[in-house]
């Protein structure tokens, strides 16, 4: 009886499988390539596609939109089920993960043959984020980094006509701003502890390697990182920065209200700040490169943005590459900026008046020459989002000392990197 039951079950399973297997489509002469892009980038890039299809009548592009919040899950699931697109937009910190998955192909052969995509067209630090083991896996599409949004009117009130250029100046300025309203609930700077970026940026500014021994061990309790970490958490302990995150539901409003006067963030905030800083406030704010450690100015920041990658499983790698070349032309890049405010990756595009004459863009252009990549290991996102953030909050709230927090951080990071250590030692055997 049980055998019979299994027979029926097996037969039904077969039926389901037949249902599930789809059918494949082939069209004559025209190749359809699948391009996955995230959120508003997908909406904007659809507007550029007709021009590409006009120039390349043999290619049709199918753009699929993924929400940013679910993109990584969706992509990795696609890799696991061999269901990847031909090309896709990838946050450049995700590239190590997708190379570990063997999902994307190195592009150096295509780059060396290409007339338009050349390494020297890009900002060095940005290009570098796409290079793993001396091979380039992604072509920067649009870029971002973090710098200071400053309330210049308040700076002037306390005697700073120029934005601060060093750690000492930033601290001094913050104390003076706080002293303007000692009893009110107002702060100088916003350093949310649920964002790892500031902590990592100031660590990188000291020149320290965040991970050591071929990125297989944490190096957070090193002198450089300890100095940066205690420097930043002191802002919270001295009450120069608000400690909770829920008071600030709207950073733009808070910035306009002088709830804080310095905010370290990226270009995606520019349109919103323009919207909120209206009337008499419109001239009161400016962007500025980050202050530097010791005598370096500007200090380094993070090399962020999205790259375009080609998937291993794609049958139309050449066609996908032609789309990448099209999107990397200065004209497409400027067009994309106009549609979306995403900053162009090509240096050439920055000569366009729309960027050159925008006062808020000057600092970004300058900053992009001083950007560095975070450690290029698949585990980095986990380290940054779950661990750096967790211990930054604990140290900022004074639950544990900076030394203890960083020792524990290293311990946790070493545990996360255990598999990597095993793989590295395995490879050498």
């Amino acid at each position, binding site marked *: 009886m049980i055998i019979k039951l299994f027979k*029926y*079950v097996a037969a*039904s*399973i077969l039926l389901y499988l037949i249902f599930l297997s789809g059918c494949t489509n082939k069209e004559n002469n025209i190749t359809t390539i699948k391009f996955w892009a995230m959120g508003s980038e997908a909406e904007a890039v659809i507007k550029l596609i007709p021009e590409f299809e006009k120039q390349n009548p043999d290619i049709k592009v199918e753009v699929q939109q993924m929400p940013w919040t679910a993109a990584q*899950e969706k992509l990795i699931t696609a890799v696991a089920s061999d269901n990847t697109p031909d090309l896709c937009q990838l946050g450049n910190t995700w590239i190590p993960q997708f190379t570990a998955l063997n999902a994307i192909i190195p592009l150096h052969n295509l780059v060396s043959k290409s007339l338009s995509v050349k390494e020297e067209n890009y900002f060095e630090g940005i290009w570098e984020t796409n290079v793993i083991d001396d091979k380039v896996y992604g072509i920067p599409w649009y870029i971002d980094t973090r710098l200071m949004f400053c309330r210049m009117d308040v700076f002037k009130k306390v005697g700073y006509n120029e934005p601060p250029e060093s750690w000492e100046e930033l601290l001094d300025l913050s104390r003076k701003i706080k002293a303007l309203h000692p009893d009110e609930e107002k702060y100088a700077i916003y350093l949310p502890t649920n964002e790892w970026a500031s902590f990592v940026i100031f660590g990188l500014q000291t020149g320290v390697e965040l991970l050591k021994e071929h990125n297989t061990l944490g190096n957070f309790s090193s002198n450089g990182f300890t100095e940066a970490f205690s420097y930043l958490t002191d802002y919270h302990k001295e009450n120069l920065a608000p400690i909770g995150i*829920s*008071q600030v539901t709207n950073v733009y409003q808070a910035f306009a209200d002088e709830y804080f006067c310095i905010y370290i963030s990226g270009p995606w905030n520019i349109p919103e700040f323009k919207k909120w800083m209206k009337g008499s406030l419109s001239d009161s704010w400016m962007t500025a490169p980050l202050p530097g450690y010791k005598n370096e100015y500007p200090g380094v920041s993070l090399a962020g943005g999205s790259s375009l990658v080609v998937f291993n499983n794609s049958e139309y790698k050449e066609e996908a590459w032609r789309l990448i070349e099209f999107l990397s032309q200065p004209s497409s890049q400027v067009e994309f900026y106009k549609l979306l405010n995403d900053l162009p990756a090509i240096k050439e595009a920055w000569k366009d008046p729309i960027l050159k004459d925008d006062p808020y863009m000057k600092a970004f252009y300058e900053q992009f020459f001083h950007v560095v990549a975070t450690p290029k290991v698949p585990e980095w996102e*986990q380290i940054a989002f779950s661990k750096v953030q967790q211990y930054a909050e604990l140290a900022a709230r004074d639950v544990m000392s900076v030394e203890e927090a960083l020792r524990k951080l290293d311990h946790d990071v070493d545990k996360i990197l255990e598999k990597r250590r095993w793989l590295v030692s395995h490879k050498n055997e």
Partner: protein
Amino acid sequence: MDKSATRSVYFFLAPALSAIFIFFFIPVIAAFIISFTDFDIYALGDYSTVRFIWFTNYIELFNDPLFWTALRNTFYFVLVSAPLSIMVSLGAAILLNSKLIKFKAIFRLSYFIPVVTTLVAVAIVWRFIYHPKFGIMNYFLSWFNINPVDWLGDPVWAMPAIILMSVWKNFGYNMIIFLAGLQNISEELYEAAELEGASSWQKFKSITLPMLAPTTAFVSIITMIGFFQFFAEPYIMTQGGPLNSTLSIVQYMYHEGFKWWNMGYSASIAFVLFLIIIIGTLIQFKLQKSH
């Protein structure tokens, strides 16, 4: 039953059984096996890097402070909000069942609305309610000269805030079930008790509660299982913070599995949670039986 009848029984059961087999048993067994491996992002790229590590995931889990934090938070949540939710819904059901109340349909509807509203929308609205500066909660408290509380930003208050919200959100469902249970109690019992001169408390204690025992058992088990899996509330309102004070076990599992792709570790968390829920259910069965 003759042979052809059994055959047709299997025939009609087969689609449902095979669906359960494919979409339930196979994944569960696969997850159980994965929980003994270090399946992660490297393994997705190259299956040869999977290591069979026996109980290492489980041992690591027991040494993982974050797991204990998540477990403690989950127990805190279940032990406070499950009884609270059951009491509130029983109270509401009794009130609604009373003959004195008019416009019952309106009350029933308005108590039930939170249940059918999307949790995401509700959570966002409650985030505004709890806002330390502009929230209505602190505004009410200010009438009683209570200083503003940073509900979701303070590690001590974040969990009570979430409990309050989820009790409000969920009590309507249990209330409807209790209401059905109450309407099943024969009116004659109350009439007989009244003739003997029983007070309303005595009637509640000696008639309502015992007669509701099966309903209460059902409600408490379902509520417990549901609350053990609480996820969306902290996911949307606090992301597990501040200081991990609202990190739930399911949220931790989700992070490990779908954010960091430590599938092996994540699967082991799932099975520990499974064990806990089974034990919880067994204890409740025992308690119900001994009554």
